[in-house]
Structures are given as C-alpha cells and as structure tokens.
C-alpha cells in the first residue's frame, strides 16, 4: 500500500517545526494526587457478572489541577471521564446514580435501544442534589454490540455538566465482538474531551455558549497526549467517543489508515478504509488500525475544522493538535482485516416525511409580541419571549409541548435542515436511524447512527423505524450549549 506512506510523509513535512507536540502533564494523575480529595477515585472499569450489571455512579465536584492552575472538575466516582462501563447484550442493568452536586442532574443512555420511560432512558426525570435514583432496564439479547455513552441530560445544565467533566463510555458486548478478526484485535477505548483552561479566558475570545464552548486542553481518557501501543504486526481496535461539549474532531493517525467497522449504533456491513474521520459531539466510531508500518512513533492528530460556515469563527486553531502518541510494541502474528461484518438491512419505505429546520433566532413572545430591539430588555422578555436562542421549526424547547407524534412500528424520513451559520449535530434518542442522503447526495453505505452532523446550510435526510417502545422522548442538537439554549424537540411515540 502506497497511500499510508504518502500520508505519513505529507503530515511529517507539514508539521516540521511547528512544535505542536504537547508532552504535557497527565491531567488525571494530578487530580488523583490532589490532597483535597476525601476518597480515592473508584475503579476505572465497572462490568456485569452472570447477566446482571450492578453499577453505581456518584456525580461530584472534585478538586484537582489543570495546566495553569487549580480547577474543579465534575466527576463520576472521582474520575473524568467516569469509569468505563461494560455490559453484555441481554444483561439486566441496574445503575444507581447518586447526586453529590449542588444542582440537579440525571442520566441519558445515549444510543441504547431501551424504553424512554420509567427507570430506563427517561431524560424527563431529575435527581435533586443529595438524591439518588436507580436506573433499571434489560438490554435485548440481540441488542447490537457497540460503544455507547452515559452523560447528564438535565435541561439547562447539560452543557455545564458535560463540559465540566461528566461522561462515561458504555461498551455493549455482542455480535460484532464475536467476529474472529475483531476479537483478535487489541482494543482501546478513547474518550475525547476538551476542558476549559484554568483561567477560562477562551470564552472571552468568542467561544461562548452561542457557538458552544470549547476548551484548549484536548484530553484522551483524561490525559494530555497519552502514550498508547500499536501491536506490531497485529490489529488495533480504536473505539472513539466524542464526549466534548461542542468540539468537532477531524482525526487522522500518522502513517496509517483507519478501517471503519462500526458507527454509533453498531457494526457496518463492509469495512471502510478512511484517511480521516470527522467525529461530532455524541458520535462514536470503531476503527481497526493495522500495525504494518515501520515500528516507531505515530501521532493521533486533530486536524483543523471550521464548524461555523464561512464566517471564520472558531478558526483560532489553525495547526494540527496532537491527541495521543502511538508506539509499536511487542510483535504478534500478522492479523488480517475482516472482509465482511454484520449486514445493515434497508429500512421499510417511509410512510411520511417531516422537515426539521434548525437555526438561531430571536424568539417571539407567546402572545406573538412584535419585538422592538431598541426597547428590548428584561421587560420585553418577561412578556413571554425567550429572546435569543436556538429553535427547531421556529420553536424553542418546551418540555410540556409535544412537537412530533409518531406511531409505534412506523417508518419515517426526517429531513434535517440546518438554516444556520454554524454546524449542528442532530441526535435522536431511543431508535437508531440511517442517513439516506446529505445535501441531496445518497450515502454510499448504510450505517446505524443516532447522531449526524448537519453542517451550516446543509440538509440531511435520515430514515428511522420507531420500534419496540412507546413513550415520550427527545431529539436535539448535541452541541450541548445549543441543546440548553432551546435546540430540542419532544417526540411522542404511541
């Protein structure tokens, strides 16, 4: 293969002399050593035994330090990211959330196909400070294997809590893990998350709530530029989760192609070799990397990406940033790549098409008040409008309003229209969907998705069948500042 070699050279030349390598302190290590902690951090992994997963997450503020000064991070069991949760398809899951924060919180089981009601993926419930709640549900025996995501979904506070550090990756073991080539690969889960600096100065430079907050500290599993291993001769299975508030990652691994084997909702049918991978907040991807290059050091890079149309906003980072450094280690028998994975069936013909237009706008008052911007102040908004925020089809989120009613078992096409000057990653709870087309161009391969990046000015058509579960749930922008600022709608499945 000549392409990987060429790529390595291109990147090698492009980066010469830029000095972008961040060999920084290990962020998490510093937090662990902080004297302010009352208890040691909990286990790094929590799993199930004999078909039952009995898990506990304690949401708490933890004092530690970031490069540049002391900081308070939000943690599960004293960790950010929280413990890696590992369960099997068919398991009974009981997850007790204890809230030791000073504000309400809750959990969303991002990507799981479980009920949106009761003690399952119920984002309308809220756990008060000092309270606790036991989430309980059973995963179907045929629940797809994949990488899922547990994070707070407390409306108005989601962004603060996730940006502050609350998130856990959730691995469901099943079908994909039994494919021999995949099972033989060495597996690493990478939680990608940016943190604000200790000073928080970046917000003053415009990366505030309207664009969605980004931080300059790019961590992988809570560490700055961790060292990771590629098995020499073998296969590395990288399982990537973007747990950031707003940052979109454009990933490339020096000298290597990434072979995509799974997206948000599980395996794809045929592995797909990629040079770059775009990962929006809430999205996941499983890729295989072949350890077939000259043993050495290769950087996982975040390449520049402009997520605000042509406006030039968020263009402050113009150089590639190093996320992690891989070194060849050991030597194993040469492992081939899998050639086929798991079929992704076509969904039935849609019964109807709906259109969802996302934009930022001045909300008009409930009484249809005409805004006079010159006079607009607290008084104007007290008359019923929310003022500036984000909307779907002209309406900001209202938990007491049902925006979309669908029938259980039906299939629909949703045309997601971004009529805004910035990107919006669109996320639907409970049921995975397939992207049919982007900007009118059909997708090359069917994939199970629950979050899709809809770029500024773009239209994306998705298809979804509402299976198995009735109840009330939501769809929203997964730039969590946008979600908190109104870019969310209520879906009722009857």
């Amino acid at each position, binding site marked *: 293969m000549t392409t990987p070699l060429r790529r390595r050279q291109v990147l090698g030349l492009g980066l010469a002399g830029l000095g972008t390598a961040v060999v920084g302190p290990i962020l998490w290590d510093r937090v662990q050593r902080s004297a302010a902690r009352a208890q040691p951090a909990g286990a790094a992994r929590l799993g199930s035994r004999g078909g039952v997963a009995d898990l506990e997450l304690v949401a708490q503020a933890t004092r530690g330090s970031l490069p540049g000064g002391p900081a308070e991070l939000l943690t599960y069991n004293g960790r950010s990211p929280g413990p890696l949760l590992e369960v099997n398809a068919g398991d009974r899951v009981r997850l007790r959330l204890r809230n030791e924060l000073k504000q309400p919180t809750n959990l969303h089981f991002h990507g799981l196909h479980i009920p949106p009601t009761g003690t399952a993926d119920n984002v309308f419930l809220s756990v008060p400070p000092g309270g606790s709640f036991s989430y309980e549900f059973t995963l179907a025996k045929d629940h797809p294997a994949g990488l899922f995501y547990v994070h707070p979904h407390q409306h108005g506070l989601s962004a603060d809590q996730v940006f502050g550090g609350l998130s856990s990756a959730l691995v469901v073991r099943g079908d994909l893990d039994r494919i021999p080539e995949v099972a033989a690969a060495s597996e690493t889960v990478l939680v990608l998350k940016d943190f604000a600096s200790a000073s928080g100065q970046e*917000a*003053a*430079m*415009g*990366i*505030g*709530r*309207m*664009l969605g907050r980004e931080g300059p500290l790019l961590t992988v599993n809570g560490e700055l530029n961790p060292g990771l291993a590629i098995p020499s001769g073998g296969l590395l299975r990288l399982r990537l989760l973007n747990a950031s508030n707003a940052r979109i990652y454009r990933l490339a691994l020096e000298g290597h192609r990434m072979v995509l084997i799974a997206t948000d909702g599980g395996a794809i049918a045929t592995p797909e070799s990629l040079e770059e991978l775009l990962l929006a907040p809430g999205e996941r991807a499983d890729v295989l990397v072949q350890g077939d290059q000259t043993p050495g050091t290769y950087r996982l890079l975040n390449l520049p990406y402009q997520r*605000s*149309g*042509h*406006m*030039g*906003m968020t*263009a*402050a980072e*113009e150089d590639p940033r190093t996320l992690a450094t891989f070194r060849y280690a050991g030597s194993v028998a040469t492992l081939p790549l899998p050639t086929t994975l798991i079929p992704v069936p076509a969904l039935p013909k849609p019964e109807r098409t709906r259109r969802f237009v996302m*934009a*930022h*706008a*001045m909300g008009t008052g409930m009484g249809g008040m005409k805004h*006079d*911007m*010159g*006079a*607009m*102040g607290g008084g*104007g*908004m007290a008359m019923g*409008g*929310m*003022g*500036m*925020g984000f909307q779907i089809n002209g309406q900001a989120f209202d938990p007491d309003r049902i925006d979309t009613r669908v029938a259980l078992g039906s299939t629909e096409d949703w045309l997601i229209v971004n*009529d*805004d*000057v910035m990107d919006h990653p669109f996320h639907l709870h409970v049921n995975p969907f397939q992207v049919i087309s982007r900007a009118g161009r059909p997708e090359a391969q069917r994939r199970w998705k629950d979050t899709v990046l809809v770029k500024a*000015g773009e239209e994306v058509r998705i298809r979804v069948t509402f299976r198995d579960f009735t109840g009330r749930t939501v769809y929203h922008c997964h730039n969590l500042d946008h979600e*908190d*600022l*109104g870019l969310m709608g209520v879906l009722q499945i009857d």
Partner: protein
Amino acid sequence: MPVTSYRSASCGCCKGWVQHMRANGFAVRDVVVADVGVVKRRLGVPARLASCHTAEVAGFALEGHVPAADVKRLLQKRPQVAGLALPGMPLGSPGMESAYGKEAFTVMAFTRTGAISSFSQHAK
C-alpha cells in the same frame, strides 16, 4: 453617522444589531451578501476575532455585536486602529438579548497589522 452592515441572509441575530444601532442614532444600510468572509478579509478582521456580521463606519471596521456606546467612543477618540470586534456572539450583547442568560464579554480593537488589544469590558 452612516454605517454599512454586511450579513448573510440566514443569520438570525445580525438584524437585531442593526436595530440596536438605529435605535442609538446611527443611519444603517443593511446589506445581505453571499459570503461575509470576503468583507472580513477586505477589512482585515483577524480570523480569531470573527463574528457573524461585519460593518463599516467612518473608515473603521466593526465586527459582530459591538455596542453602540463603544462605537461612539471610537468615533470620538479616533485611535490608531483598523476597527473594533466582539468575537463570537456573546449572549446579552446588543442583538443577542436572551432569557437564557448573559455572558461577560470584551470588545477588542485591532490594527491593520493584526495587533489586538482590549477596548472595553462588559460584565455579565
């Protein structure tokens, strides 16, 4: 004092700033353009200070939701700068009033050579 403002058709907040300027005595020509980036480059707005719309007044560039009071002070003092910028779209700035909250923000001055300094600070 005449102001010319350039914005894209789809932006949901630029009109609010135009109205804020008019309410404060400026005569504003509101121009919709296909690519605001072209205007930003012509006026030398540094990429890291970018916002949604861009305007011109008396040879100065105005980037984003700069408050009218800051523009008046700019026109009185006439410092050796190319213009003022309020990067991003801070909640609570003119045209960005919101019941979801307010953010503190700093209006920056920039020169033709790209030097950037703080012009005024606005608390939450």
